[in-house]
């Protein structure tokens, strides 16, 4: 028995060492867990309800957009209030290119990403001259301009663009319009799950990309820049270059979030991309944890999934009140984000352990 425990321990240690050597593995494992959770509604063994499945979709979309904001805000110290606008660009861009021009999905998505990257470049250039509150509200202008274009310009079809079935790689078409309850029977009805899986893969890829950026000299340059621009410059870090990179990556990730929305819901609404959505996503980053990738996911869970899934049945209409209070309370009492609760608990545990050991030792000393 004891032997088994020990071999488990060494295996676990080996596993931890492997993760340390290849950090992206943790995101892949995380994605795998999500993939298994997604099977819940189909088999009923795993306690994941249909509602949770739906909420997880939104959480993943938010996480991708929020990772962009985390890079910009947490690492780069810059803010953008145009996130929702660029999510709209993603969903509607794909919609337009596919329905109006009949482009294949991949081309439409690529084009949309390029366009948003170019817009991000423009904001980056803008940020070189405008700073602080003026920059924040400047990006709000961009968000509002995009929103007015979506809702006013006839090409977007008023309320929404219906994209319909999307064919991936020119081959695989996934029809999601089957009602969920019908999935309990028959093998051909896993299709909605495939869409869920695609979103999971995209989110995991985004997490890995952001991880790689953050852990490279580019990421360190971001952090040096947000700490002090003057000091960063004296180390040869070009502020212009890294501001542009930060804005381009952030807008492209927001757009990717929008594309994910289009993939799953197969339509693109024009009215959903409001300031409140942008603020919610920033809220997710701040509450979850600035400079933390899993924290961003956790923040999206706290701000979207928890209120919708657990608080609505308990408190009914007061749920959004609760979300608001939660944001305020977390910022006041846990300004670094909820994810750091874990690190802090660990630290506390370490201290306790030390104190206990210390006591033992002193006791020992007294005895001898």
């Amino acid at each position: 028995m004891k032997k088994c425990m020990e071999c488990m321990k060494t295996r676990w240690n080996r596993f931890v060492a492997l993760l340390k050597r290849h950090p992206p593995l943790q995101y892949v494992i995380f994605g795998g867990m999500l993939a298994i959770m997604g099977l819940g509604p189909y088999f009923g063994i795993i306690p994941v309800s249909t509602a949770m499945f739906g909420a997880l979709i939104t959480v993943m979309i938010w996480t991708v957009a929020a990772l962009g904001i985390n890079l910009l805000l947490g690492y780069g110290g810059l803010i953008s209030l145009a996130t929702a606008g660029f999510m709209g660009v993603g969903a509607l861009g794909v919609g337009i290119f596919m329905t109006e021009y009949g482009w294949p999905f991949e081309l439409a998505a690529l084009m949309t990403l390029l366009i948003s990257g170019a817009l991000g470049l423009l904001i980056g250039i803008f940020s070189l001259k405008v700073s602080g509150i003026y920059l924040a509200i400047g990006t709000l202008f961009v968000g509002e301009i995009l929103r007015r274009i979506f809702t006013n310009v006839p090409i977007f079809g008023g309320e929404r663009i219906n994209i319909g079935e999307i064919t991936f790689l020119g081959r695989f078409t996934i029809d999601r319009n089957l009602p969920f309850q019908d999935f309990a029977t028959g093998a051909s009805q896993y299709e909605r799950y495939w869409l869920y899986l695609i979103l999971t893969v995209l989110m995991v890829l985004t997490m890995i990309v952001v991880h790689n950026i953050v852990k490279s000299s580019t990421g360190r340059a971001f952090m040096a820049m947000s700490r002090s621009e003057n000091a960063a410059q004296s180390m040869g870090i070009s502020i212009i270059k890294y501001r542009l990179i930060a804005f381009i990556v952030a807008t492209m990730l927001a757009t990717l979030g929008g594309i994910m929305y289009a993939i799953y819901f197969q339509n693109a609404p024009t009215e959903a991309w409001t300031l409140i959505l942008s603020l919610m996503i920033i809220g997710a980053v701040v509450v979850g944890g600035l400079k933390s990738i899993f924290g961003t996911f956790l923040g999206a869970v706290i701000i979207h999934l928890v209120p919708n899934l657990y608080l609505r049945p308990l408190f009914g209409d007061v749920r959004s009140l609760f979300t608001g209070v939660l944001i305020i309370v977390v910022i006041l009492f846990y300004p670094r984000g909820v994810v750091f609760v874990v690190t802090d608990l660990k630290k506390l545990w370490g201290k306790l352990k030390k104190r206990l050991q210390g006591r033992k030792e002193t006791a020992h000393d007294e005895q001898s």
Partner: protein
Amino acid sequence: MNSPKKPILELNKVTMRFGGLVAVDNLSFTVHEKEIVGLIGPNGAGKTTVFNCATQFYDDYEGDIRFYTEAGDSVDLRSKKVTEIAPLGISRTFQNIELVQDLSILDNVLIGAHYKFETGVFRHIFKTKKARDEEQVWKARAEEILKFMNIAHLKHFYVAGQPYGILKKIEIARAMMMNPRLIILDEPAAGLTDYETDELEKLVYRIRDEYNISILLIEHDMGFVMNICDRVCAINFGKYIAMDTPKNIQEHPEVKEAYLGSEA
């Protein structure tokens, strides 16, 4: 020293104005290779402004500031941008410690090597072999420097929460990461305990002797300045008062007056 001294940094009639205020007034002095030079003066004398001119934070000064490369070519620093100063061989530390708090000590030191990285953001995203190799090379170098400073055992700890003496060392380590020939230290001993100051003193000597780096420093802890510097330059109201050995500076009547005020 017997060999003729080669200059490394030369200020020639530098004047810097802010509106009507003259912060640096027609100041000239030279730092030589392998020399430790202190720049002293009462509060508001314009010391940090001198540093900021030399590192091109301010580029609208009058006069010129020259830097001599290893080959002996003189470079007019005005022709360089702020970001081009480090690659040239001048690195600096800051009065208010500009470290990234929630990054490990090793990563903070690695920021110093930033301009040496050849890989760009695309290679970083896909973590190509070149990017990984490069990261390894500079990590090894950073560890070497941390070992040199006796703080290698702390490399994976966050900067936040470290004692002041360690923070100062990390800043110096980061400056050394840039492979400089001249390090400019802005109040390195401020806030240190006596023991830490002694340690810093030895460290500065070792940096000069083992890495052949010249040092220019501002410091208010006069004991430290007088112990460590080969020569000290005293200024007041941005004007040159005297530049001499520490002993002579301490006894210089005008320096005394600048510090203690005139009795009249």
